[in-house]
């Protein structure tokens, strides 16, 4: 993962609350088996609308998304984060994020900055008054700067540290492999194992056919 210290880019005001993961990337785009190439899928349904914010030239190359509360609700699809990253977003600013989305972002180096809804409104106004205006997000100082406006944001200390160091979680966990092995040694015997597989007797499943 790339280290994240500070980022400056065009701010995009997305005046919607409850932007769910089906809006960020509809399910039909989830069939790909790669982690990249999702930029065309981002906000796919809305992008058909000429007035949609990302279809306006000033915001087209945006990299800091400023959204309404409860951004990223719904499914656990990390594709939502990949799509935002592939499009070019480095930061999402909102007053509330869905837990799984925020977790996925942290694993992928997409910064989710929590600010009050009042500050979201201020940012929206600035970005709408001056389309194409840039925002600087400093993870080091935990600040968002947009013109004269400087506000601080919240982020979990540990996530901040991992983002700034660009660290891989699996590598960190495997440093404690002895602890995992010790834990496994004392797990109770009744805890189920998937292997060897046990099932009810096998039965044929008849294929349904289309109705005439």
């Amino acid at each position: 993962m790339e280290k994240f210290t500070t980022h400056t880019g065009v701010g995009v005001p997305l005046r919607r609350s409850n932007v769910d993961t089906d809006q960020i990337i509809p399910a039909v785009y989830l069939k790909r088996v790669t982690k990249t190439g999702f930029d065309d899928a981002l906000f796919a349904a809305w992008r058909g609308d000429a007035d949609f914010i990302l279809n306006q030239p000033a915001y087209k190359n945006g990299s800091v998304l400023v959204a309404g509360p409860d951004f990223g609700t719904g499914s656990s699809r990390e594709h939502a984060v990949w799509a935002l990253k592939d499009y070019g977003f480095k930061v999402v600013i909102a007053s509330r994020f869905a837990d799984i989305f925020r977790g996925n972002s942290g694993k992928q180096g997409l910064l989710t900055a929590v600010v009050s809804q009042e500050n979201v409104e201020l940012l929206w106004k600035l970005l709408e008054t001056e389309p194409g205006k840039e925002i600087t997000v400093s993870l080091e100082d935990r600040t968002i700067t947009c013109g004269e406006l400087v506000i601080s944001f919240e982020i979990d200390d540990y996530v901040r540290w991992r983002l700034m160091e660009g660290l891989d979680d699996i590598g960190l966990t495997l440093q404690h492999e002895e602890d995992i092995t010790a834990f496994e040694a004392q797990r109770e015997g009744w805890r189920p194992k998937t292997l060897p597989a046990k099932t009810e007797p096998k039965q044929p499943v008849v294929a349904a056919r289309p109705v005439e």
Partner: protein
Amino acid sequence: MGTTLAEKLWQDHLVRKGENGAPDLIYIDLHMCHEVTSPQAFEGLRLAGRPVRRPDLTIATEDHNTPTLNIDLPIADETSRIQINTLRKNAEEFGVRIHSLGDADQGVVHVVGPQLGLTMPGMTVVCGDSHTSTHGAFGALAFGIGTSEVEHVLATQTLPLKPFKTMAINVNGELPKGTTAKDIILAIIAKIGTGGGQGYVLEYRGDAIKKLSMEARMTICNMSIEAGARAGLIAPDETTFEYVKGRPHAPEGQDWDDAVAYWKTLVTDADAVFDTEVDLNASDLEPFVTWGTNPGQGLPLSATVPNPEDFADETDREAAENALRYMGLTPGTPLREIDIDTVFLGSCTNGRIEDLRAAAEIIKGRTKAPNTRMLVVPGSARVRLQAEAEGLDKVFLDFGAEWRNAGCSMCLGMNPDQLKPEERSASTSNRNFEGRQGKGGRTHLVSPLVAAATAVRGKLSSPDDLENAAAALV
């Protein structure tokens, strides 16, 4: 001070306590995989040269993409076919058990785990799917994870996590006839909002919860994520033990006794304190349906489409305006007057045998509304087989419904089962997001009873709207 059930489960799976703000390391007892959120995780392992640490705690099924027709033929959609073949190849390469299309144990991952007896009280269960919260119905700490975490669990059988906050949802009183677990959870989400549960594990408690079957408890826990929660929990009791006993992977002999002795300790202590508590009176409930584009936008069926101007909060008002525009609804219209094109009975929320039985009881001997189609998609191949053994398939077919093979199907429209633009559904699934069931499709979330009655009338309905339906209600 005592501890809550969620805290006990956490403590019992603590591999290592985090220091200096680092997360705790939590052991995972069961990891379920499906074709959509796992390919990039397996690829990550391959690139790093890492094995699956515990294939014996891992299981895969095919569900999100699978067709529900012609399952004996090659999958027509190329990208779906590639994704499913990728899962099969990964399962073989990494030694993971898989139940593929056509197998009697194939089906929606959250239906398959419990029916195999792999889901039990006192476990930690994860899957790259937000509805993993379903398994919390057994008194297991179960939650959805993203693909990076899927890879993490495959490689280490653990997850680094910060403790969740705890919320008690107390549901007391007598649930009226014709009202179900689905109505309870839709009412809870409408009450606390789609973000109300953020950061929390919800523990559903109270008389009304204790009386519910395991299927009904799964329906409630399943939709915890729709309130924004990480997980939902119900303390295990005799109903739980009875459900697990005798299933293929259930413990036997001394193991069973040991397990039950431990499971009986899995309750929130009387003097434990939750971070938040919410109360709901079950006897006040009636069938609940959604009118908008998030699961919190719901109302009792007897209500009318709300007027956005009546929302005090500006964000809620804007959300309601957007929702009504998308849904093509006019404020003031009685919900019972809304015409429905498609009824979808199925999904990890309401695709279990009890759901099919309840719907079949209502439609038995009746005729489907001519302009409404009904799609019945069992949650798993075993559920389908069970329903066929009970003759339910005949009831659905005689009624005029389509009887399909198992999978996620129209819940999220990754397979060919999709709504057309502006087509309106009454769906027993879990999400009414814009485009969820097909681009431009309009979804009303309902219980299996409402789904069945709606298929009879062709408008959003409860069994009360049908003649002589009361006798069919359990």
